[in-house]
């Protein structure tokens, strides 16, 4: 706050206007009205958001401390952390956790590379091609994940799929290969569907980042004799680091919640079960509200942890998303540099 106040008069020639504003006698009235109006406008959305998440998660934390089965509500008993203990001592839980992590890491890594490629293609394309490219890219973005899951499932299906037939020349693939019976093959198809569906999202976020890199910078680098690779690695990518980190974090959090593709393709068979599916099966299928809530809370904490790591370790400024102007990023950078 103080830093901003110190900087403003020097940095802005509009200091005169600011001073007038500060000393204006009408300021406090207007400021009060602004606070009231601000909360009137923003309040409803805020309350709704809290009601649909904060309350349920608090309830989940509470429920997770009980041995509570809906089919036997009278036998409900307080067991404190036993549900968590049960989870953390079960090797199955760790396997499921590992599978979820594997899906997250592999899909996000592949999507980042693929998405960057698509973003460059969309960014560089001529006007005449741009519409076509963007329209086609948006199809997987908008399609229902369950539809994507079925599309990929049927492609690889042992009876109705054509993949075994088309790729029978590849060693290991023949008409007898059941992709969904083995972990390696099943998880690959699940990840393929996940990647296909969500890469456009990353590509669009990266496209936004690319669009914010000033053309003059790239042009200057080019004039100075930078190769195309150097233009990307030295000028473009460093200038869109904020967009890359935000895309990465958002997709990682999203991938960690993977549910639809696994549910449709294997239902968790062939060791492909993931955390969200485990929570679903405990709560909804088995009506074990206590244990299901514990899994839900663990998933929630894992997501929080990922955000915390991203912010602390990689300085991801999630708020950069609302500060879309190029100046915004520079300002944050300067503030950080000055503060430390």
């Amino acid at each position, binding site marked *: 706050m103080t830093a901003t106040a110190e900087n403003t008069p020097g940095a802005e020639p509009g200091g005169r206007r600011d001073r007038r504003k500060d000393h204006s006698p009408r300021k406090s009235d207007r400021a009060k009205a*602004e*606070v009231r*109006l*601000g*909360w009137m*406008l*923003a309040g409803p*959305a*805020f309350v*709704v*958001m809290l009601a*649909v998440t904060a309350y*349920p998660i608090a309830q*989940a934390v509470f*429920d997770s401390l009980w041995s509570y089965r809906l089919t036997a509500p009278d036998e409900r008993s307080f067991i404190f952390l036993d549900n968590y203990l049960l989870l953390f001592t079960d090797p199955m839980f760790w396997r499921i956790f590992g599978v979820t992590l594997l899906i997250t890491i592999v899909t996000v890594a592949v999507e980042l590379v693929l998405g960057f490629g698509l973003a460059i*293609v969309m960014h560089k*394309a*001529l*006007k005449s091609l741009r*519409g076509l490219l963007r*329209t*086609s890219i*948006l*199809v*997987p*973005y*908008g399609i*229902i*994940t*369950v*539809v*994507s899951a*079925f*599309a990929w499932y*049927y492609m690889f299906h042992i009876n*109705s799929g054509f993949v075994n037939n088309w790729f029978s020349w590849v060693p290991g693939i023949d008409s007898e290969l059941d992709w969904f019976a083995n972990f390696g093959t099943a998880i690959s198809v699940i990840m393929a569907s996940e990647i296909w569906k969500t890469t*456009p999202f990353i590509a*669009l976020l990266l*496209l*936004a980042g690319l*669009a914010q890199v000033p053309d003059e910078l790239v042009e200057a680098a080019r004039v100075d004799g930078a190769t195309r690779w150097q233009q990307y690695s030295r000028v473009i990518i460093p200038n869109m680091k904020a967009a890359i980190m935000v895309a990465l974090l958002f997709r990682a*959090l999203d991938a960690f*919640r993977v*549910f*639809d593709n696994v549910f*449709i393709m294997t239902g968790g068979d062939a060791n492909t079960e993931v955390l*969200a599916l485990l*929570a*679903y099966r405990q*709560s*909804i299928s088995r009506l074990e509200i206590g244990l*299901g*809530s514990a899994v*839900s809370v663990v998933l929630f904490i894992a*997501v929080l942890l990922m955000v915390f790591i991203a912010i602390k370790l990689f300085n991801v400024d999630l708020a950069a*998303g*609302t*500060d*879309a*102007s190029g100046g915004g990023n520079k300002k944050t950078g300067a503030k950080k540099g000055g503060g430390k």
Partner: protein
Amino acid sequence: MASAKGLTGRQKLGWTVVTVLVLLYALFPVAAIFANSFKTQADLGNPAFWPSNWTWENYEMIFVGSAQELFLTALRNSIGITLIATFIAVVLATLCAYAIARMDFPGKKFILGTALAVSIFPVISVVTPLFNLWRTIGLYDTWPGLIIPYLSLTLPISIWTLAAFFRQIPWELEQAAQVDGATQWQAFRKAIVPLAAPGVFTTAIIAFFIAWNDFVYGISLTSTEAARPVPAALAFFTGASQFEEPTGAISAAAIVVTIPVVVLVLLFQRQIVSGLTQGAVKG
């Protein structure tokens, strides 16, 4: 930078190859399920890509045949629930994002932070308590029982998209209107709404996609056709006999629910992309 005339033959070839690759990437899985939806039951066991003879029988099954009950009610549920959830989210988010982008009041950062926290919230984490609560208060397996949790999906992204969008609007216009004697509300309505409308509209499309896509809430908080949306209903399709896989019917239903997505994308491709990249009022 380069214009179409300035392209060399090699560049033209390069762009053709790139375009074909992107098209293949984006449309191949859709084409595959599209082909499936026109296959006969016998054809579905045949590992060819296209049907050997095209048939409408899968579409007949979901629209007038045995799967009609399951599919049509689910389609009605999906459309109704998604549109209502999108509408509520966009109205609330527009007001909220305007306040955040434009006004100075304590708690602003906290609201944005809350929106962010809600958007990274694992849906499955709130499903268990909602499942339990909805059963108690009678919202289980009803439209409001899905519309309310859908707001947790649609509201945060709407607030963030719109706040980002609103920050790019040249607000001097509003100040100019206020200098000319308009109140803040009038200035908002006359000077800003026309500029903000494309952003609001784009946000609505994105929110629609997200609600339309939901599966976790749909499958967890419904148990009958009263409120079950299409993605959840697809998981309940059964074949004509217990030995028959419902592949054809599912494929046909999948194509039907993909049509709105494709139509929106075809019509509003530019708005969706520009909404996500630079806002509609780039100078």
